[in-house]
């Protein structure tokens, strides 16, 4: 698992509210350890073009309740493997949120964002700020609990527990 990049400048792919995990990666593709299979089908029932247009490092932006539904960790894994560097949403479903942090995919909750499709974003993960260079607005993300910052800082829960052996607050 790689270290998390803390400064990201990339293009936003913007979708709507309540994007469930079946739409992120349909259940029929989840039974695999092959991450490229997941990436090949990411978001296919929402936007069949997504995996053709997404570039390494791009940012996924959504509305409320992103990642609702199943507990499948294959959902953030599929996004990460497809090249998504960070997901921004107005808010997240809780299991998706934990899963993303655990696999080292940064997630930012910005309740009032108005980021539009194709916007160029400049993100400072350490500061939790997102500059929308297209709309010339800066947003501040909700601060993560300390333990999540620590897990994300190690690149995910596997690295965190490899290093510390147990949880600590």
């Amino acid at each position, binding site marked *: 698992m790689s270290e998390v990049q803390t400064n990201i400048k990339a293009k936003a792919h913007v979708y709507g509210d*309540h994007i*469930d995990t*079946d*739409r992120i990666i*349909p*259940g*029929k593709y*989840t*039974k*695999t*350890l092959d991450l490229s299979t997941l990436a090949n089908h990411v978001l296919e*029932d929402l936007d069949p073009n997504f995996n053709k247009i997404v570039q390494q490092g791009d940012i996924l932006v959504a509305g*409320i*309740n992103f990642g*609702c*539904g*199943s*507990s*499948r*960790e*294959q959902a953030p*894994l599929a996004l990460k493997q497809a090249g998504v560097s960070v997901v921004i949403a107005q*808010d997240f*479903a*809780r*299991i998706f949120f*934990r*899963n993303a942090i*655990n*696999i080292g995919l940064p997630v930012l909750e910005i309740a009032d964002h108005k980021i539009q499709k194709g916007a160029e974003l400049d993100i400072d993960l350490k500061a939790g700020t997102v500059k929308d260079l297209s709309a010339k607005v800066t947003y501040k993300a909700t601060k993560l*609990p*300390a*333990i999540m910052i620590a897990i994300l800082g190690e690149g*995910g*829960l*596997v690295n965190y*527990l*490899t290093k510390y*052996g*147990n*949880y*600590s*607050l």
Partner: protein
Amino acid sequence: MGQTISEKIISNHVGRKVYAGELVISEVDGCMASDTTGPLTIKAFREMGGKKVFNPDKCALIIDHAAPSPNERIANLHKMMRDFAKEQGMRLFEIGEGICHQVMVENAYVKPGDIFIGADSHTPTYGALNAFACGVGSTDLAATMMTGKIWLKVPQTIQINCAGKLQDGVTAKDLILFLVGKVTVSGATYQAIEFTGEAFEGLSLASRMTIANMSSEMGAKTGIVHPKGLGLEYDFEAITPDEDANYVKTFDFDVSRLEPQVSAPESPDNVHNISNYEGIKINYAFIGTCCNGRLEDLDIAAEILKGKKIHPDVRMVIAPASQSVLLDAISNGTMTTLIEAGASLITSGCGPCVGTHQGVPADGEVVISAANRNFRGRMGNPNSNIYLGAPSTVAASALEGRITNPKKFLL
């Protein structure tokens, strides 16, 4: 200051009084993963340096999501799970033994007052047992298997109070669909739910599992049914909320005149009275899942279908929630009734509900299902439409070939 059920259960585990908003690391009483989440769990467990699970009697693996294996790729993932269970001396529930949540309850892996962590989003089902149960993903579960612990933010609690008794012909599924419609799919995100009031008091354990199960359709971390009226085969100490417990929100409903409910495509909270959907032609009727595959669900379907044949344009699939449910349904004649009516019995498991195998709908087809989710593509085909209802509604609709109010068959 008074405490909710969740605050009490977590406090009992961490050895001090805790309240909503606090971060805690808690010991867990049990954990499990299925064949969707288990292989990634095992991979992460190895990668994080795991050698032995914290307690093999408190960890389980269940092969239910694609059981029996539909192809060689999944067959090999199942083998990986069997090998891991053998190596660790932990139980693996084989194909057909049942759906993870059903077998965890039947085999007493989870009891009242427990904290249970499951790598499946419907883990809150055990809230029926007065337990605090949360769904997580694979890496979290691997960490729990290794450490015996979980980190949690003590959730705020939403109280849902339902006065009145359900009418004859109206079931727990209708009640929980109604509540999902009111609270919405994100209405309880990060929060716990307490279901309380007369409507829940007379419910069986199976019906309470249906209620708690769909807490996850409101985004909840856990959903606990008040233990008043809960009968179990063993003695237990019920955990009840304090009178001055702090709720972030309270919903009050009188459900004494509630009608059968249907959730329309393509979100579980798109719920209305069945009268809004009566007459919609269906192609496929499904009864099963962790939500509604128990004996009382099959029995009510058999009551409606006894001595009759389902509509010639409809196929009907039945997946009992466990082998134990299947055996009971064989002994009491329910299974014979359903099969004679034209239903097809499949291996106990999740297949059709998660779109893996054993009943994927065709393009343009309409499904009436007793499951808990109807997201686009959920059953494996994004070009089909899924309506959710009670098992009684599914059976009545299978009979008539269109969405049908089951009350006339039950009164």
